[in-house]
Every structure is written in structure tokens, then in C-alpha cells.
């Protein structure tokens, strides 16, 4: 049989890494069962919000600003992903390809400047 692809390591390591936190968690569960049975109560298992009683639902609506950051992030991140294969091939690229890439980077940089000018990057 041929050797398995080295990328199987990620699967093996993933499985081991999954078991690794489960062992102490299981041990802790065993300890509760044998030595210290849990005694849950309404006060003890309430959420801790600085000692005051929790008011209303915690799953709140978020400020739209977080989403603006996320959208700008998405654009620049995709640009970074495009930059990586370009960078890996850079040493053997002709000058035309490099100029084309420069335009691409400048376009995205211009988008960043636009977002900056519109105040999307201001934390409020």
C-alpha cells in the first residue's frame, strides 16, 4: 500500500486535538458525580452581570458600525487572498503583470480611502 498523503495529518491531529480537551472535561464530570454532586439553584445559575438582576433579553441588536467594519474587512481580506498567489509568483512575473497588480492594489486602497473619507472607519 502507498503511504497516505501527508495531509491526513490534519485529520489525525484534529481528532487528537478534539479528544484532548474532552479528557479533562470528562474527568471533571466524573469528579462531580462521585465527590461533589451539583446543586443548581435559580440564583446560583443566573447570569453574572455585576451582581444586578439581569434585565431584558441579552441577545441584543448590535450597532451597525460593527457590520461596516466587517464589510470593509471582507473587501480588503479578499484583496489579501488575491495578493498571496501574486506574491508567490512575483519573482518570475513580467513588468506588465506587476503594473496590473499595482492597479488592483491601488483600486482597493482607493476604496479604503473612500471608506475613511466617508467616516466608516470612525469608532462611535
Amino acid at each position, binding site marked *: 500500500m502507498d*503511504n*497516505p498523503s*501527508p*495531509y*491526513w*495529518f*490534519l485529520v*489525525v*491531529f*484534529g481528532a*487528537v*486535538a*478534539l479528544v*484532548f*480537551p474532552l479528557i*479533562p*472535561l470528562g*474527568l*471533571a*464530570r466524573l*469528579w462531580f458525580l462521585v*465527590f*461533589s454532586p*451539583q446543586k*443548581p439553584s*435559580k440564583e*446560583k*445559575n*443566573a*447570569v*453574572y452581570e*455585576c451582581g444586578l438582576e*439581569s434585565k431584558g433579553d*441579552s*441577545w*441584543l441588536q*448590535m450597532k451597525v458600525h*460593527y457590520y461596516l*467594519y*466587517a464589510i*470593509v*474587512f471582507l473587501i*480588503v*481580506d479578499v484583496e*489579501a487572498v488575491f*495578493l*498571496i498567489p501574486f*506574491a*508567490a*509568483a*512575483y*519573482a*518570475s512575473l513580467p513588468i506588465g503583470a*506587476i503594473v496590473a497588480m499595482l492597479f488592483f*492594489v491601488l483600486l482597493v486602497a482607493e476604496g*479604503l480611502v473612500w471608506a*475613511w473619507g466617508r467616516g466608516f*472607519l*470612525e*469608532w462611535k
Partner: protein
Amino acid sequence: MTLVERIDQAPLLLQRWAVSFFPALLQPWVAMLISAAAIIGVFASLFALSTLAERKGLGRIQNRPGPNRVGPFGMLQPLADGIKMLIKEDIVPLRADKVLHFLAPIALIVPSLLVYSVLPIGRNLIAMQCQLGVLLFFAIGASTELSIFMAGWGSHNKYSLLGSIRAIAQMISYELPMVLAAVTVILATSSLDTVNIVEAQAGGFWAWHAFTPWGAIALLTFFICALAESNRAPFDLPEAESELIAGHLTEYSGFKYALFFMAEYLGMMAISGMAITLFLGGWQAPLPILNFIPSWMWFFGKLACFVVLFIWIRGTLPRLRADQLMNLAWKFLLPIALLNIGLAGLWVKSSGWIAWPISVILLGLAIVGLGRLLRGSRPRGGKRIYRYAD
């Protein structure tokens, strides 16, 4: 093989020796299992050591002894902490999303361990040589953000949710300059393979990428982003205890909390390892004469320096404000990193020394200009008044 080479390759030889007891069919799988167990064993014990170093170091900085009761000089403190975490009651809030609350620490620790598979910790000592190693590292590393949001959402606590949202905003913002800083190295070495990147820096410390104009700036950018990505002070806003209790960790106790803690340190060490691989020569010795010291000792020595630096910075710098944090990422580090890629390209094509003055002038102008721009946006409220405690 000489004795020096034997010591250098000792982990690999040990692995081969252990594998040889198994039938040929199983051997590659057993080798993988041994690598996985070795990575977990080594870095989990380093985690224990660095918690002790952190508490001792912070104690020294704050003029107190630090842990000194358990064992000689408090050396057994991590062990005591572990036992305490194991037997502490695991409290889950009644209104929490039980499944998410349980899965979050596990989903956090798995990617923080998986990133180590592409880090070369010594000559030939890499768990999985991968042509896209750098990309894989960032791709797996980025999925920790999801786990932090799971923790914040699953806890059903306002402070947790706020902390995790802050953490995500911070981590995605700082990921961009970090990846762009790594792109400069990919440009210079034409490779995404971490082993090739380390080998490109052979010969001595002057061949390391940190000793080029673009490399120095990229290393600084990368290091600042590493601080922010691992939610360490001065970027510990998601866990700012004076504002958010403990952020997404608020509702966690017992060993789940320990897992979060461990993931933070593992992430910190992984990112330091990546910084070493990309910019500081990985396992290469700084001088060719020092090659008799095993390569993995150089890697772990450099890693120890990074961890000490992290602790030192935590003990020294105050926490940033949220708007300062976002401004630093988007309006300072990101433009600098973009400019830096251009300079790295110039460096590669112009064969060295011509690029020095151009890089220094352009980078200097960019840093001073952007710095002044950001200073100008600070709210001005007349003369500053300083009050000192007596």
C-alpha cells in the same frame, strides 16, 4: 551521523525508533499520532511554564513576590491551578444555550492546536510540510474568532456578547495588516512553504528578513497584530475586567475556563512561532559558528524571548481605548503594510542596496505622516491636567 547531528535530529530519530515497532501498514499513521501527541505535550507544558513565568514576571514588575507558596519558589503553581480547575464546579447559566456554551472551548482549542502542524520547530522537524503552509496557518487561526463568538452568544449574558463582538471587531481588523505583513515575506521568498521560508534565511542573522527595511517594518506590524490577535494587553479590550467583567469568559468556570486560558496562550505561542519563522530565521542559528547548538533549541529560545516580551508588555503598557484600537489598525497599520508590500517588491527586483534609502525615506514619511494625521483627529480639550497620587 555525528553526535551534533544526532542531538539535532533527536526528536525525529526517537519517532522513527518508536514507529519501527509497528507493522509497515500502520507506520505512517503511528508517526502522525506521535507527532500530534508530541506537539500537544510540548506546547501544553510550555503553556504551564509560561503561566508561571507570567505570574512571576508580573509580580516582579508590580513589586510583589508572585506565587511563592506551592512548591519551591511557587514552581508547582501550574499543577495546583490545574487540579483546582478540575475539581471546581462547572456552572452553566440557566438561560444559556447549553450546546454552544459547551462546544465553544472545544471549538477554540482545536484550531489553536492545529496551527502548530505547519510550524517548523527545527531542522526537518515539522509535523506536516505543506506548500501552502502560511495560508493554512492564517486560515485555521482565523476560525478561533468563530469560537469566541460562540462563547459570547451561548452564555446569554450581555457582557459576554459585548466582549465577543468587541473581540471579533478587533481580531478581523488586526488580521488584515498581519496577513499583509506576511505577504512581504512570500514576495521575497516566492514560497508559501514555511520550511522554504526558513531555509531562505540561512547563513546568519544578516540573512534574516527582519534585517531588511521592509522586513523590520513587517515584523513590527506583525508583532503589534499578534498582540491584538491573542487579546493580550494593551489590546485586551474584549476581556477588559473593569468594563466587561471578563468578556466572553464571564460565564465559564472550571476546566472550560482553563481551556480558554490555554487556547489564549497556545495562540500567543503559535503566532510568535510564525513571526520567528517568517522574520527571525526560524530554527537557524544567528551565527554560523553556533550551529552546534540544536536547531530546535534556537527555535524554543526565540519563542521564550517572544513570550517574555509579551509578559513585559502586559506589565508595562496601559489598555488602549476602543477608538484608538480601531484607528491604529485601519488608519495606521493597514496603509503601512500596503506600502511595505510595494517596497518589498522593489527590494526583490532591484537587487538590494538601492532599495535601502528609498525604503527608509518612504516608510519614514508614511509613518510620520500617518502618525500626525491620527494625532490631529484626537479630541482637543484645552490644556491637559495631570494628577498624581501622593
